[in-house]
């Protein structure tokens, strides 16, 4: 494997709006792929339709910018047919969770070894500003002038509900945060969901403001890392503890709390109860969790398919079409 730089994965001039979170993510994605080092020609980047789904056009890899919602299904066929490829799916919240919701849950359930990047700006941008399945209840948009009357999906909940084995989150403007989870997603065998909190400057500006800048993240985000205590705050003065069925924010040094009382993150725990609680935390009472929240090993679909083919090939006496014909009852006419 040759050494690569971000430049080797880069192509063309992105056409997103100035300031769009997709620009930030794309830069981080190029860098992450260079660090991962899989050859551009062994990489396939597959998207659906939407602003973020333009991303493959800016990649010097193999790829497809396909149809709305179907990227997960298309990526599945691509990976199963050619398991050698490193397959990345790029989807927005509408593409991935509304029209593509069924494919999203089944990719997770099957645990096919693809990486799903979900760029979540909680809005339909390309169609110019309708609420999405991640827009909060009451959200006012062109298609909900009086506010929505429905609850949003929380991507982690959907992923976990579909037995997802990997879920991580980063903010688009946080290059290192993105690179870290993308590398972890690549290293994880099986479906890896990376939720990228991304701002739409035109139709939903400010939706992730509480974590969009470094100073804000210091106040409102917690970087979770396997095996490390769950502490956060500008001076790591806060921590998470378990209380009853839930989590609780505590201040270290107050009420007799010491660092030893703080919950230690276990991304590899099969039981996803606490991981889900971490993933669902939101302000103002809780920090937003960033980093690899769940990363659990399980058999992958594509490997199992290949293994089964290999096993059966050893068992069955026929290996080509002519031999297949011989397995049938035949008769001779002279």
């Amino acid at each position, binding site marked *: 494997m040759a050494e690569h730089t971000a430049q080797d994965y880069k192509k*063309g001039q992105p056409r997103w709006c100035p300031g769009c979170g997709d620009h930030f993510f794309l830069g981080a994605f190029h860098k992450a792929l260079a660090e991962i080092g899989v*050859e*551009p*020609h*062994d990489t*396939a*980047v*597959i998207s659906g*339709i939407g602003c973020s789904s333009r991303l*493959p*056009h800016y*990649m*010097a*890899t*193999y*790829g*497809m*910018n*396909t*149809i709305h919602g*179907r990227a997960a*299904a*298309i*990526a*599945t*066929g*691509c*990976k*199963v*047919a*050619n398991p*050698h*490829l490193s397959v990345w799916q790029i989807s927005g919240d509408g593409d991935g969770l509304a029209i593509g919701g*069924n*494919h999203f*849950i*089944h990719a997770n359930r099957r645990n096919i070894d693809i990486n799903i990047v979900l760029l979540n700006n909680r809005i339909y941008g390309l169609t110019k500003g309708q609420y999405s399945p991640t827009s909060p209840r009451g959200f006012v948009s062109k298609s909900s002038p009086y506010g929505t009357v429905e609850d949003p999906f929380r991507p982690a909940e959907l992923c976990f509900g579909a037995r997802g084995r990997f879920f991580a989150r980063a903010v688009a403007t946080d290059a290192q945060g993105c690179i870290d989870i993308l590398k972890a997603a690549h290293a994880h065998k099986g479906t890896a969901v990376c939720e990228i909190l991304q701002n739409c400057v035109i139709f939903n500006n400010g939706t992730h403001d509480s974590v969009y800048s470094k100073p804000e993240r210091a106040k409102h985000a917690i970087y979770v890392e396997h095996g490390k205590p769950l502490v956060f705050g500008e001076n790591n003065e806060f921590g998470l503890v378990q209380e009853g069925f839930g989590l609780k924010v505590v201040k270290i040094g107050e009420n007799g709390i010491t660092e030893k009382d703080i919950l230690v993150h276990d991304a590899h725990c099969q039981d996803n109860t606490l991981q889900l609680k971490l993933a669902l935390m939101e302000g103002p009472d809780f920090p937003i969790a960033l980093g690899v929240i769940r990363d659990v090993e399980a058999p992958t679909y594509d490997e199992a*398919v290949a293994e*089964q*083919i290999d096993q*059966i*090939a050893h*068992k*069955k006496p*026929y*290996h*080509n*079409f*002519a031999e*297949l*014909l011989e397995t*049938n*009852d*035949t*008769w*001779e*006419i*002279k």
Partner: protein
Amino acid sequence: MKEDVSVKHIDDVVVLFSGDSGDGMQLAGNIFSTVSATLGNSISTFPNYPADIRAPQGSLTGVSGFKVHVSADQSYTPGDQCDVLVAMNAAALKTQYKQAKPNATIIIDADAFQAKDLEKAEFKTDDPLGEMGIDHDRVIICHMTQMVKDCLADTGMDVKSMLKCRNMFALGLVCWLYSRDIQIAFNFLHEKFAKKPEIAEANIRVIQAGYDFGHNTHSSAANVYYIDAHNKQSGRYMDITGNKATAYGFIAAAEKAGLKLYLGSYPITPATDVLHELAKHKSLGVTTVQCEDEIAGCASSVGAAFAGALAVTSTSGPGICLKSEAMNLAVIMELPLVVLDVQRGGPATGLPTKSEQTDLLQVLFGRNGESPMPVLAATSPTDCFDAAYEASKMALEHMTPVVLLTDAFVANGSGAFRLPDLNEYPAIRPPYVPEELRGTWTPYQRNAEGSRYWAIPGREGFTHILGGLEKDNLTGAISTDPENHDLMTRLRQQKVDKIPVPDLHVAGDVNDADLLIVGFGGTFGHLREAMQTLRQQGYKVAHAHFKYINPLPKNTAEVLKKYPKVVVAEQNMGQLAAFLRMKVDGFVPQQFNQVKGQPFVVNELVTAFQNLLNA
């Protein structure tokens, strides 16, 4: 033993085995057809099974039938009405009797005509034959259940297992009636139950018992028959259903092309047997993915095509609606994909187990935008093999999705299939990007046939992005340029239009027919038989049958305009007729349309065509 039963030589017989879904009618029918085929007869079979999974035992809705047509000459269809009706219970007699010829022999198991059976079959009296007006002389009444039990009494089998052999008694009896060599059936069972010799032995004993019963009693038949065999083409044969032949065609094409076969599918009647068949053959490297829905079945196949496989997706009925979107993606990305549509009764869920030809216009035109796609329609169960092979070759060599139409009749029916030798099949050569284009190649660059080149991921130096948005003809970048879109639309159309297909073949009175019968796909056999019948009656008729529908054969207009009268006969409201009128200036055909979910009936066709000829 009486000696006065004569053996009559005949050319043709149709046997309908009918009983409860669990009575093993298909196995009995299959063995009968295999035995006959081994003796050199032409065979054609058709199962008729209920839509319900397990209707109550003995009920009218639970009856399943298996029709076998054995012929001395080419048998094109499973036949209209049967010469022998085997009714394993009262419900079978009640529902299937209408399929029997007026002089047909009826074989019934008297033990399955008890009071409770008659009640389930909704007979009002204890005389079902009288109630249906069936002449007793035509009926072979045997106590099949009892005789099977007696025959197997010393085997130690439980009664339930014994009764599973009842179908073999009926088979034995029919074999006697038509002078079949039952040793061939024995060999078949020895092979089929090689791992369970006691089952094979029990079945063989019961066949022998059924045969002996016929022989010893001469039942009520005045004659036994021997079906002659003409026109034997030498070679090795197997019995194959259309769905199995389709699956085999894909396997053969993948092997010939040197590609992995990928099937993305979702279970749907009557296409599912293709998924079942391909799922078995992992030792050939076949990958089948049972997807979350029809959409994913097709979409994942598009992904597999991009990744370098021979990609196939299979469906039926409403499934083809759901696949349209991803089929269109394959059109604009110009990737090879075969879409198998086993047509069934519609609209919506319609008649899931029945046969129609009602998807033709949908597969030709049912997508947004200008979306040209080649369409082929298999003409018989065994032709499904060639059609699947040709559809795959066309898709791979011209970088296009191709629709292969079959239908429930062709898919579930079977025929004697001469084992193909792949060496005799044409090579399949996809247009891989030639090495000399390294460095200058762009994704929508075309070869002399107008096909895009195929660069498979993993190949260094040929990375590229395809997509559902219109692309610039030269650079492959997204383009909304009006001139470019117009050009790309034309290039995609021309590519499909230029695909070479064989000329339309005309059979019968080629030069002086008064009527040309035209059809497509699975109605081939019925229309051909109707033509032959009319010619025997002295009419001048010809038959031309479309297997290649898009693009149409080059001589289409010439053939259609050559005859004074043309009738387009199809199992829809006139979809092929409409397409031909659109493609052939001034062509105004007569139409014969039937949408009953059942195969055509040759006699009905003959009558209708006589009326046209005499008009």
